[in-house]
C-alpha cells in the first residue's frame, strides 16, 4: 500500500468499561497517520492528521451529552477535525496498527454521570395491561411501545447513576392517581411516555408535553424536543401544556409522544430498535442541557 495514509471513515461510539463511560471519536486510515491534538479553547478539541482524504468530509452530528459535533477540514496533505464538546474534557489518544488503522480519541463521560448521579427519576410508561392505548395501522400498540422506550430510557439513566422508579410493571395499568403516588418530594423529574393517535389524518412527528405548574418546564420540553427531533430526524409537533402533569406541582414533568402511532410511516419507525435508544439518549441529553444552561 502507498506510504501516505488515506482516511476512510469517521464515527463516534459510546464505550462502557465497568462503571466508566467514554464518548469516542474514531478516525480510520489505511496506515497509521501522524496525529496532533490541541485544545484551542475549553470545549473544543482539534485533531490534525497528515493524510489524504478518501472519505466524505461532511460533519458528523453526535449530541451524546459530551460530544456535540465533529467537523472535517481538508487541507494540503493534512486533514483537521474539530470536535465540539458539552464539557471541558480532554481526550486520551490511541492509534492502533492494522488495516484499517484506528485513531481513537476517548472523552470521559464523567460530567454527564456527575449530573445524574443519585437523581431520582420517575418513569411512567402509559397504559398497560388490558389498556393497549392507540393501535398502529399494522399491529403495534402504544402500551408496548411506551414500555420499550421507557426501558431504553431507564438503561441510559441507570448507566449515568440516576435512580429510576417505575409507575407500573409491564402488565399493570394503574390509575393516574396511583401513578402519582410514586412521586416523592425528592423526585428530580417525572417522565411519562405515550404515543399520539389521530385516526387516519396523516399527522406525524414528535411532541413533548410539560407541567405548566412548574416554572421553566416549557423550555425544558423545548430542549428535549429539539434533541429528539434532531436525533431521529422526524417532524416536530411542538410542545404543549398538559393538565394531568400540572398535578405534579413544583416537580418538573414531561410527557413524551415520540410518534403519531396511527400514521403507518411513524409506526414503521417504532419497529427499529435503535429508534427507542435514540429517543432515550436524546431525552437524557436534553434534560441535562436544560438544567446546565448558562453554566
Amino acid at each position: 500500500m502507498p506510504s501516505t495514509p488515506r482516511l476512510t471513515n469517521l464515527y463516534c461510539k459510546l464505550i462502557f468499561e465497568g462503571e466508566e463511560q467514554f464518548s469516542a471519536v474514531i478516525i480510520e486510515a489505511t496506515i497509521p497517520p501522524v496525529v496532533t491534538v490541541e485544545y484551542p479553547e475549553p470545549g473544543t478539541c482539534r485533531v490534525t492528521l497528515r493524510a489524504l482524504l478518501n472519505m466524505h468530509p461532511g460533519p458528523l452530528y453526535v449530541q451524546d451529552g459530551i460530544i456535540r459535533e465533529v467537523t472535517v477540514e481538508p487541507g494540503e496533505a493534512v486533514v483537521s477535525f474539530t470536535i465540539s464538546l458539552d464539557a471541558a474534557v480532554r481526550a486520551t489518544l490511541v492509534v492502533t496498527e492494522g488495516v484499517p488503522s484506528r485513531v481513537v480519541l476517548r472523552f470521559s463521560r464523567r460530567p454527564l454521570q456527575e449530573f445524574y448521579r443519585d437523581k431520582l427519576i420517575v418513569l411512567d410508561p402509559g397504559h398497560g395491561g388490558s389498556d393497549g392505548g392507540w393501535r398502529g395501522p399494522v399491529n403495534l400498540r402504544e402500551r408496548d411501545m411506551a414500555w420499550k422506550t421507557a426501558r431504553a430510557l431507564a438503561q441510559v439513566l441507570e448507566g449515568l447513576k440516576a435512580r429510576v422508579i417505575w409507575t407500573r410493571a409491564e402488565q399493570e395499568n394503574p390509575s393516574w392517581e396511583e401513578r402519582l403516588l410514586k412521586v416523592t418530594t425528592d423526585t428530580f423529574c417525572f417522565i411519562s411516555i405515550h404515543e399520539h393517535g389521530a385516526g387516519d389524518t396523516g399527522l406525524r412527528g414528535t411532541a413533548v408535553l410539560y407541567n405548566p405548574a412548574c416554572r421553566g418546564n416549557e423550555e425544558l420540553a423545548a430542549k428535549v424536543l429539539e434533541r429528539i427531533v434532531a436525533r431521529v430526524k422526524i417532524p416536530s409537533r411542538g410542545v404543549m401544556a398538559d393538565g394531568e402533569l400540572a398535578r405534579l406541582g413544583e416537580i418538573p414533568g414531561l410527557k413524551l409522544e415520540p410518534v403519531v402511532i396511527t400514521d403507518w410511516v411513524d409506526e414503521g419507525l417504532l419497529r427499529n430498535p435503535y429508534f427507542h435508544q435514540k429517543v432515550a439518549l436524546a431525552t437524557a441529553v436534553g434534560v441535562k442541557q436544560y438544567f446546565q444552561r448558562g453554566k
Partner: protein
Amino acid sequence: MYYKIPIRTHIITENEDIVALTRKYSEGIAAPGDIICLAESVVAISQGRAVLPETVRPGRLARFLSRFPGKDGSLATPPAMQLAIEEVGTARILAGCAAAAVGRVFKKKGLFYIVAGRQLALIDDIAGTMHPYERHIVLGPKNPGRLVRAIKKATGAEAVIADVNDKGCVDILGITKKGYRQAVIEALKDNPFGNEDEQTPIVILKRRKTKS
C-alpha cells in the same frame, strides 16, 4: 484473506453515477486483486428505486395481503405490498401467498419469496434503510451484474453488489469473479456497510500479503 476497509460516503441520492463515485472513493486504495463491495440499497437508490410510500396507492389486494407476511419483515405495509405486486404481477404474488400458506402447514419457511420472486426479498420496507431514505420503500437494484463489470473496468479491482441483513445473511446480487463468493460472504457477515448512524455503503476488501 482480506482486510476490511469501510468508506464513509456522502448520502447517495437518485441519478448519481455509482461507477464514478465508487472510483472516486476507492482511489489509491483498491488495486487489482482487491474487491470493492457495494451495499445493494445504495445502488438501488442511485437508480431511483426508492419510493415514498405516500405516493403509492395501495389497492384492495395489497391492503388485504399485507396483513399476512411476517410483521417485522418487509411487505408488512400496504404500499410495500402494492409495489411488490407491481414488480412481479398479481399472479405470482398470489402463487407466493398460496405457497406460504402450504408452507405454514408443513412448517417450511421462505416459500413466499421462492415462488413470488427472490427480488421481493430485497424490498426494504420503511425503517429498513438509512437516513434520509428511512421513510422510503427501497426496491432491489436493476442490472447488478452489468454494474459490477463496469466498476471493475473503471477501477481494476473486482466488484460485488450485496445485501446484508441484520441477522448476518449475505446475499450476493452481482460479482465479477465467482470464485471469490465464499470469501466475500465471510467478510460481509458482520455487516461492515454499517447501520443507523454509520454511512459506509462501500467496503474495500484488501488482499492480505501472504508471508513467503
